[in-house]
């Protein structure tokens, strides 16, 4: 039985050694190769002094080299922290410092970027280059030798010189951390969601069974490593000895190009946020492509507007359509399958029922009882799929990972999702909205407070409010309303461009406001609070 994520790989390598594990265009890594290369990475990590429980950064887009790195870290008994190469350096430094990363696995193209982080992360002592290098830009200067003051650079050739033999005994147990995913934090800094091997496997085992994955499947998700959707294609595909296919970074921007790629790659199971699927349905020219291999379409991360889902199902009939729901803290915790042959949808599909080995229940606003069907409540989740907590933040962990109020006999953790739901007459949960200032945009969680905190860091900004603007395609767009610190409330020369540039240096692009407005003063309620409702009305 697999009780650590890397067992999925060693098991598949033992029974399906020559099957493709990760495909990038025409090239692919077999399970045997992935197993051996990740063994070499694990040995390179140990050679750099990485010990069980250490956090190792992975600075890479999704690629064969990134998957080799993920398994290499796990085999070394360490825990990986995905670092988005597109994130501003300041945010990467915050995440690396917070999680205590001292060694980073990069690829040929990001090694220089990783080494440069030493300026703001003095504890960074080594950058190891993972491989293979397929379709990535040529090596930069830093990737081939140590820099005088910076971290040691271990090139891929040195990794390949390590033994490909497995390390031997497992270095971790199933309750140890497998990875930490950083998500938006309301106080202005991202927070690290700690996921153990057991929690991840709870999802992976269920997901592989739910989708009926086999070794014949070709699985794809465009989600980057720091987004929890990527746990599915990296690990569930591996459990089934299926092939994970890596979509080129810019392909999913162009719908017809994506459709063409899906046809060529013979993708059979797709998993993404709804907006990518909406683009595919509305601009993908789907009848022009043979997508007969595509059997299952999974979406998660935000509400799929009914009219776009209808269009997709009309363009691609006869497939399974699955809505998966769950914050990063719970993995996927509920799911819903759109019934085959169902009539045209008039409302977003439900988030459904709890996954295997998971319990989900709605609690009334008083917090003292489970909501009745039809009644609104906040969704709580319990089970082995829950996170261990937020890295280095026990106070926040205690607030979100509460004691199950309905288990009197012993302490059991339950996660408060902050999502308001109701149970419909078919026994499925329906998502109603949020309890707090978190919104979803492009499937990513954004705490409005974190964007506001970034705005307040600008010396000329006196007050700032960020409001969600509902957007059919994205979930929400972000609208910033700003009072500048000029005389008599004038913007004092502060421009939209300067505000955006300021945000861009601190926040990932999906958190940068789409709209910037200047006001002389913010409207207030009678209690002196910013009148968000009036601002929202004003923005319509």
């Amino acid at each position, binding site marked *: 039985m697999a009780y650590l994520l890397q067992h999925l790989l060693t098991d598949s390598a033992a029974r399906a050694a020559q099957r493709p594990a990760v495909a990038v265009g025409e090239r692919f890594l077999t399970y045997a190769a992935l197993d051996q290369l990740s063994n070499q990475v694990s040995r390179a990590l140990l050679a750099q002094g990485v010990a069980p429980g250490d956090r190792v950064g992975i600075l890479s887009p999704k690629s064969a080299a990134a998957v080799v790195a993920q398994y290499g870290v796990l085999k070394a008994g360490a825990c990986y922290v995905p670092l988005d190469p*597109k994130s501003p350096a300041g945010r990467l430094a915050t995440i690396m410092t917070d999680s205590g990363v001292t060694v980073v696995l990069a690829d040929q193209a990001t090694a220089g970027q990783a080494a440069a982080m030493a300026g703001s992360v003095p504890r960074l002592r080594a950058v190891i280059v993972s491989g293979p290098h397929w379709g990535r830009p040529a090596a930069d200067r830093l990737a081939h030798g140590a820099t005088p003051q910076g971290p040691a650079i271990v090139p891929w050739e040195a990794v390949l010189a390590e033994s490909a033999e497995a390390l031997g005994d497992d270095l971790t147990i199933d309750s140890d951390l497998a990875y930490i995913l950083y998500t938006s934090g309301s106080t202005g800094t991202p927070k690290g969601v700690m996921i153990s091997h057991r929690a991840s496997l709870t999802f992976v085992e269920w997901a592989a069974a739910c989708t009926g994955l086999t070794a014949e499947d070709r699985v794809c998700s465009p989600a980057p490593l720091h987004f929890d959707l990527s746990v599915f294609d990296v690990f569930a595909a591996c459990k089934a000895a299926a092939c994970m296919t890596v979509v080129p970074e*810019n392909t*999913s*921007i*162009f*719908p*017809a*190009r994506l459709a063409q790629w899906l046809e060529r790659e013979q993708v059979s199971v797709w998993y993404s946020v709804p*907006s*990518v699927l909406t*683009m595919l349905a509305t*601009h*993908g*020219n789907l009848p*022009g492509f043979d997508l007969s291999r595509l059997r299952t379409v999974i979406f998660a991360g935000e509400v799929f507007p009914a009219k776009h889902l209808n269009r997709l199902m009309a363009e691609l009939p006869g497939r399974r359509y699955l809505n998966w729901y769950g914050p990063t803290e719970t993995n996927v915790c509920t799911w819903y399958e759109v019934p085959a042959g169902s009539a045209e949808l008039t409302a977003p599909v439900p988030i459904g029922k709890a996954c295997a080995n998971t319990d989900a229940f709605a609690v009334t606003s008083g917090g003292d009882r489970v909501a009745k069907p039809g009644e609104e409540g906040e969704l709580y989740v319990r089970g082995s799929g829950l996170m261990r907590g937020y890295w280095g933040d026990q106070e926040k962990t205690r607030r979100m990972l509460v004691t199950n109020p309905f288990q009197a006999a012993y302490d059991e953790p339950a996660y408060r999702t902050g999502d308001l739901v109701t149970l419909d007459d078919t026994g499925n949960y329906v998502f109603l909205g949020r309890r707090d200032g978190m919104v979803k945009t*492009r499937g990513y969680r954004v705490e409005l407070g974190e964007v506001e905190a970034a705005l307040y860091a600008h010396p000329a900004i006196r007050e700032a409010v960020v409001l969600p603007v509902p957007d059919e*395609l*994205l979930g929400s767009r972000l609208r910033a309303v700003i009072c500048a610190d000029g005389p008599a409330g004038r913007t004092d020369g502060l421009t939209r*461009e*300067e505000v*955006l*540039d300021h*945000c*861009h240096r601190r926040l990932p*692009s999906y958190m*940068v406001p789409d709209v910037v407005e200047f006001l002389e003063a913010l409207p207030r309620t009678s209690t002196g609070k910013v009148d968000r409702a009036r601002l929202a009305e004003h923005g319509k």
Partner: protein
Amino acid sequence: MEEVINDYISRELVQDASLLPLGNATSLLETGILDSLSLLRLVVFVQRQFLVTVDDVDLVPEHFDSVDDICAYLRSRQGGRAGQAVGHG
């Protein structure tokens, strides 16, 4: 035409001010200016501005990777009626 499109992209789509002023040959993909949403906004803009219809099959990087690429594509769609901007806004 280049100026109108460059101005729109600079004003509405560029988030990173260090990319400004935007060169007409600058890759909108490599600089991360284009994502799936900004592409759609750009298409809506050029369709309205230049009275052309952008077919779904034409939504490819070859036509949208730079201001120059977009203009070359639009000129081919307009059949030589280059630069006939309709209004400004």
